[in-house]
């Protein structure tokens, strides 16, 4: 069973299958885009649309009730792709004002040979954002495509790892800037350029059909899950539960790191407490700011996907967030439990109040700076209250 759509082309109604209609739309769009670059392009596109309408009309006259994908494919093949229609003489007009046929033919010959060369040469890759495979703006998948990769997921994870371990802000800014500046690969032609494939009629046709199938399958999975925007609260709840679950798992995981530390290395750091689970937990809480930021971002991203994308994809995103989460917490706990990374300085501070024999109370601030195998301990003493029985001593 297939859905059909009624379309109106120059005053006549045609019944057309949904997938066929999409292919036709893509085709007409690519024609419009291709010819928009030259003078009178709109008119050419319009003429071609008329021709399509005429061919559809013929089919209708022959008694075809609904136009299917095969028919559209045949029509498109008959009319050809925009690259095949290139009017190579257009540029030579100015040169051959004389108007003799010989001149024209010679110029035409040269120009079209150049065009041929350009066509057979594999196109140089262009940096586009990939709208068909994106999490936020499709920047990472665009970069992956640019460097010849196909699956952006590992690179997304690496990007987030690197940005967490180094510094989030600059990476975030770079991402936003790229998102704003790099164009989206909208047409089949752009998508071919993005992948560095040869742009010619055959590959364009292929690409259009491949995109077609992709979007068709995405749509079926979407409709089977069927709750994109409708049950927002339910999905938000699920997201919250998932995130809580991730938090639970990560706290257990980090506490295991803590136990390992207690058994393997006797010299527990100052901030380690007796109970490893809570000990590590407090360490994590010390980094509350990052923690809250990550959770907030995770929730935002999750909600974005639940609202605007298929649920199949949002599961993938959840996994991605979970991995980042684990990475962050692992980093935080490692930092606290194995303080002797030679390349990082760690500073621990703790304070304790001491009551002196004379009754005065002092606050002692210890600062332990660990750098590789060297540990420096600094202690500052601040008097909080004066000795209590000063008068007694005076007497």
């Amino acid at each position, binding site marked *: 069973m297939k859905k059909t759509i009624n379309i109106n*082309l120059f005053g006549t109604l045609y019944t057309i299958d949904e997938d066929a209609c999409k292919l036709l739309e893509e085709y007409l769009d690519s024609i419009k885009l291709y010819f928009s670059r030259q003078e*009178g392009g709109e008119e050419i596109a319009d003429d071609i649309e008329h021709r399509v309408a005429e061919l559809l009309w013929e089919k209708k006259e022959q008694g075809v009730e609904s136009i299917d994908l095969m028919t559209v494919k045949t029509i498109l093949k008959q009319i050809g792709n925009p690259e095949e229609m290139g009017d190579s*003489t257009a540029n030579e007009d100015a040169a051959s004002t004389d108007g003799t046929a010989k001149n024209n033919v010679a110029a035409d010959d040269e120009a*079209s040979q150049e065009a041929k060369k350009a066509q057979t040469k594999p196109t140089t890759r262009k940096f586009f954002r990939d709208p068909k495979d994106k999490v936020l703006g499709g920047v990472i998948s665009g970069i992956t495509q640019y460097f010849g990769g196909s699956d952006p997921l590992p690179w997304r994870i690496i990007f987030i790892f690197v940005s967490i371990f180094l510094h989030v802000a600059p990476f975030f800014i770079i991402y936003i800037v790229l998102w704003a500046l790099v164009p989206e690969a909208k047409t089949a032609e752009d998508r071919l350029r993005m992948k560095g494939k040869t742009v010619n009629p055959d590959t364009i046709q292929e690409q259009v059909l491949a995109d077609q199938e992709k979007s068709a399958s995405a749509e079926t999975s979407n409709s089977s899950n069927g709750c994109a925007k409708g049950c927002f609260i339910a999905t938000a709840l699920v997201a919250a539960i998932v995130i809580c679950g991730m938090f639970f798992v990560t706290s257990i995981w980090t506490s295991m790191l803590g136990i390992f530390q207690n058994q393997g290395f006797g010299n527990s750091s100052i901030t380690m407490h007796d109970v490893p689970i809570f000990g590590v937990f407090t360490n994590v809480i010390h980094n509350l700011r990052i923690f809250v930021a990550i959770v907030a971002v995770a929730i935002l991203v999750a909600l974005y996907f639940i609202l605007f994308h298929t649920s199949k994809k949002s599961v993938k995103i959840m996994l991605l967030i979970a991995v980042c989460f684990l990475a962050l917490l692992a980093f935080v706990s490692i930092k606290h439990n194995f303080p002797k990374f030679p390349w990082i300085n760690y500073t621990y501070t703790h304070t304790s109040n001491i009551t002196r024999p004379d009754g005065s109370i002092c606050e002692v601030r210890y600062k332990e700076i660990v750098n590789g195998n060297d540990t420096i301990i600094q202690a500052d003493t601040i008097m909080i209250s004066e000795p209590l029985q000063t008068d007694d001593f005076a007497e």
Partner: protein
Amino acid sequence: MNIENAKSQMRKGMLEYCILLIVHRAPAYASDIIRQLEEAELIVVEGTLYPLLTRLKNDGLLAYEWQESSYGPPRKYYRLTADGEEFLNALDDAWTALDKTVNILRKTNTQNEN
């Protein structure tokens, strides 16, 4: 350069002239022109024609008017303008010269073979 390429180069050079010839005979709309060109195996894909027609029109060689059709969508009927006539005459001369040269070359070839 393969044979198909060479053939398509030849066709391309001829296309403009042939379109003008077709339109000169009687006003024609795009699908008419396509049919006649296809019979002569001058075009491979139909789309080739449209950029060419638009360019010829923009150069003032062709003019068109819309006509309602009882058979499908409205049609653009192209006819030759005065400039177009002139242009066609020039092309005619060039073609005659070209035809002559090619024929002479071919004739000498066949004579040599004999």
